[in-house]
C-alpha cells in the first residue's frame, strides 16, 4: 500500500567498497566479550534482552493456555496450581527485571546515546561493560531459580509469603540485587555522559527528546534502584537468618515491605515507560518529517514524570491497610502524573498535523503505541480514583491496565524503535511490507488479549488465579486467542528482522530522513562514531533534508 512511495523500496545503489564500521572493526570472541565500545555493548544487551523476552513470552503463552479452561477440577488442568504460580511469577520477574527495564535504556540507549549526543563513547566504558556482565550474572541467578524449584511469590516478593515459601526465593533476590546494580551503573553512566560530555554546540535544548527521556530515566534508576537493593537484601537476610523486619511472626511489618518495594518499583514503571515515550517522540517527528510539537513541553514533562513518579508509590497499596490520610495523599499525587503524560500524547498527535506522514513499519508501531498507551493511561484514572480502586484493585482490570502501558506502550515502542534504528545498527534494510503486517497483527492480537481483561476485572475476576468461576470463561478464551495472535505477530516481526540480516539490502546513511546526529554517520557507524566532529544543529529541523533516489535515503541539502 504505502510501499509505492516509501523510500525503502526505492532502488539502492550499493558501493562495493568494503566500509570500515564497528562490526568489522575487530573480530574474534574476545573482541566482543571485552569490548568497551558502547555500540557493541548495546548489541550484546539487545541479544540478551531479546532472549529474555522470548523466555518471558513463552511463560505468558503458558499462562494464557492454562486459563483456556476454568480448571475447577485440578486433574484436568494444564498445570497444577503450584506450577501455574511459578510460571506467572517467572513471567513477571523476567519481563520486568530482565527485559523491560534494560530494554530501551541499556540496549537502544547504549547504542544511540553517545551517537545522538555526538561523543565517542559513554563517560565510563568499563563501567558500561561491567553493567552488561552484571546483567548476565543476574540472568544466571534467575536461570538457577528456574532450574531448581522455581519461585512462586509473584514478582513483588510480598512478605510474609516470600519468607515462608519453600521455592528458591533467595537466589532470585540476589539476582534482582545484581540486576539493580546493572541498572544503576547504566543510569549513572548516562547521566554523567549527558552532563559532562556534550560536544560544543550541543546545548540542553538541542538534545533529541530520546536523550531527554533517557536522562529522566537515568535519574530514576540512580535514585530509586538502591532502595530495591536494600529491600531484597533484607529479604534475603530474612530468609537466611530470620531478621524479622518484614516478618509479622517476629513483630516485623509486611506493609513496610510494600512501602520499601514500591518506593523502587513504582518509579521503575517510569523507568520502563519514559524511554519508550522518548522513542515515540523521535518516531513521530522523523516519520512525519516535521518538527516535534512543543519540544520544551515534552522535555520538561519527561523530567516532571520522573520526579512525580517518586511521590505516588502508595497507589499500589490502597487496599493494603495504609492509613486514610496516606491513602488520600497518594491518590491526589497519583493524578498529578497523569497530566504530563496527557501533554505528551497531545503533542505527538499535534506533530503529525500538516506534516508528511510516511506509513512504514516504525510509524505503524508508533501509531499503535499512541492508541494503546492512551487506553493504558486513561484506565489509570479508574485506578487512581480511590473508591473505584477499592473495587478494581488486584483484579484483571489492573492486569489489563499495566499491560496496556508496559506492553502496548513500552514493548510496542521498543519494537518500533528497533525497526527504526535497525538499519543504523546492522546496516541492513528490512522488508517494510512484512514489517507493517507484523505491526498490524500485534495491534489486533494485543487488543484482543487485553480488552476483555478490563471487563473481567470490573466483573470481579481477581488476578493470579489458577482457576476461575465458569462465568468468566468466554472472556478468558477471547484473551487466550488474542495472546496467540500476539505471539504470531511478534514472531513475524522477529522473522522480518532476522531475514534482513541475511538478505536485507544495504542501508543508506539516512533511510527515514531523520535530523538527529545518528543519521549523519554511516550505517552501521564507524568505530569512533564520527570521523570528524559533527556539526550540531536543531535535532528536528527537517527543512533541509531531501529524499535522494540515488542512495535510497535522505541527504542534507
Amino acid at each position: 500500500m504505502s510501499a509505492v512511495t516509501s523510500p525503502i523500496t526505492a532502488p539502492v545503489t550499493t558501493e562495493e567498497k568494503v566500509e570500515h564500521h564497528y562490526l568489522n572493526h575487530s573480530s574474534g570472541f574476545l573482541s566482543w566479550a571485552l569490548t568497551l565500545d558502547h555500540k557493541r555493548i548495546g548489541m550484546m544487551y539487545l541479544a540478551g534482552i531479546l532472549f529474555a523476552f522470548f523466555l518471558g513470552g513463552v511463560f505468558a503463552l503458558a499462562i494464557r493456555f492454562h486459563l483456556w479452561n476454568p480448571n475447577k477440577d485440578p486433574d484436568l488442568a494444564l498445570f497444577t496450581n503450584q506450577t501455574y504460580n511459578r510460571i506467572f511469577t517467572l513471567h513477571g520477574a523476567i519481563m520486568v527485571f530482565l527485559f523491560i527495564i534494560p530494554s530501551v535504556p541499556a540496549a537502544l540507549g547504549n547504542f544511540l546515546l553517545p551517537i545522538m549526543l555526538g561523543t565517542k563513547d559513554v563517560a565510563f566504558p568499563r563501567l558500561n561493560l561491567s553493567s552488561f556482565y552484571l546483567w548476565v550474572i543476574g540472568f544466571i541467578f534467575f536461570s538457577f531459580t528456574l532450574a531448581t524449584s522455581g519461585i512462586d511469590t509473584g514478582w513483588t516478593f510480598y512478605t510474609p509469603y516470600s519468607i515462608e515459601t519453600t521455592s528458591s526465593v533467595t537466589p532470585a533476590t540476589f539476582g534482582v540485587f545484581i540486576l539493580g546494580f546493572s541498572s544503576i551503573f547504566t543510569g549513572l553512566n548516562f547521566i554523567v555522559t549527558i552532563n559532562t560530555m556534550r560536544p560544543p554546540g550541543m546545548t540542553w535544548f538541542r538534545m533529541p527528546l530520546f536523550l531527554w527521556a533517557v536522562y529522566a530515566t537515568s535519574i530514576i534508576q540512580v535514585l530509586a534502584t538502591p532502595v530495591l537493593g536494600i529491600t531484597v537484601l533484607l529479604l534475603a537476610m530474612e530468609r537466611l537468618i530470620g531478621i524479622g523486619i518484614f516478618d509479622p511472626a517476629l513483630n516485623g511489618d509486611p506493609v513496610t515491605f510494600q512501602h520499601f518495594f514500591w518506593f523502587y518499583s513504582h518509579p521503575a514503571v517510569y523507568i520502563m515507560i519514559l524511554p519508550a515515550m522518548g522513542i515515540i517522540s523521535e518516531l513521530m517527528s522523523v516519520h512525519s518529517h516535521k518538527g516535534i510539537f512543543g519540544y520544551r513541553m515534552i522535555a520538561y514533562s519527561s523530567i516532571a514524570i520522573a520526579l512525580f513518579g517518586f511521590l505516588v508509590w502508595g497507589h499500589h497499596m490502597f487496599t493494603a491497610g495504609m492509613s486514610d490520610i496516606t491513602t488520600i495523599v497518594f491518590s491526589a499525587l497519583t493524578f498529578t502524573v497523569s497530566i504530563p503524560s496527557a501533554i505528551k500524547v497531545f503533542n505527538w498527535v499535534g506533530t503529525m498535523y500538516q506534516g508528511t506522514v510516511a506509513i512504514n513499519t516504525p510509524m505503524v508501531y508508533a501509531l499503535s503505541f499512541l492508541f494503546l498507551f492512551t487506553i493504558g493511561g486513561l484506565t489509570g484514572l479508574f485506578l487512581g480514583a480511590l473508591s473505584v480502586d477499592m473495587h478494581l484493585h488486584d483484579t484483571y482490570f489492573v492486569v489489563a491496565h499495566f499491560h496496556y502501558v508496559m506492553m502496548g506502550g513500552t514493548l510496542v515502542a521498543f519494537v518500533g524503535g528497533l525497526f527504526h534504528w535497525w538499519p543504523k545498527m546492522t546496516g541492513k534494510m528490512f522488508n517494510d511490507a512484512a514489517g507493517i503486517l507484523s505491526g498490524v497483527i500485534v495491534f489486533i492480537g494485543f487488543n484482543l488479549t487485553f480488552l476483555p481483561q478490563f471487563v473481567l476485572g470490573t466483573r470481579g475476576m481477581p488476578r493470579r488465579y489458577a482457576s476461575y468461576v465458569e462465568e468468566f470463561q468466554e472472556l478468558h478464551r477471547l484473551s487466550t486467542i488474542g495472546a496467540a495472535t500476539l505471539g504470531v505477530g511478534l514472531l513475524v516481526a522477529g522473522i522480518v528482522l532476522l531475514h534482513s540480516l541475511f538478505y536485507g539490502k544495504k542501508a543508506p546513511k539516512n533511510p527515514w530522513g531523520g535530523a538527529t546526529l545518528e543519521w549523519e554517520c554511516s550505517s552501521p557507524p564507524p568505530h569512533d562514531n564520527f570521523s570528524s566532529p559533527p556539526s550540531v544543529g536543531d535535532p528536528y529541523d527537517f527543512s533541509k533534508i531531501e529524499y535522494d533516489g540515488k542512495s535510497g535515503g535522505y541527504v542534507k541539502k
Partner: protein
Amino acid sequence: MANSHSSTADAHGHAGDAHGHGDGEFAHPAPIWMLLAVFFALLVLTFLTVFQARFDLGDLEIVLTLFIATVKAGLVIAFFMHLLWDKPLNAIVILSSLIFVSLFLGFCLMDAKGYRNNLIMDPNGDLLEKSKPASQLVKTSN
C-alpha cells in the same frame, strides 16, 4: 554562604601559590590548617554528643543528637569533601538525595502513625513462649 565562599577563595589563592601548574587548573589543594581545624572541630562535637547523652533531656535529646550529627556531617561534606569549592551541580545532586530520603521516611512514618493502634504484637503468641530466657536478662545502667 557568601562569607564562607570568600574565605575559602582565599585559601585557594594560598594553595595555588604554593605550587604552580599553569594548564587547566582544577586541582585545589586544601590548606593543612583547615583540615586540622575541621578534624578538631569534629572531635569536639563527638565529645559533646557523648557528653550530652549522659543527661536525660527527654524529647529534646533526639533533636540535639541529630543536630550535632548533622553539623558534623555538614563539616565533613563541606570541607573534607570539598563541596564548598565544587561545582554547584554536585551539591544539588547530594542534597536532592537527602530530599528523596526524607520523602521516603516521611511517607512511611506518616503511614506508621495511622496504623499504630491496629498492631497485634506477637500475633501467634509464641515469641514469648519460645524465647523466654532461662534467666532474666540483666542490665546495668548509669
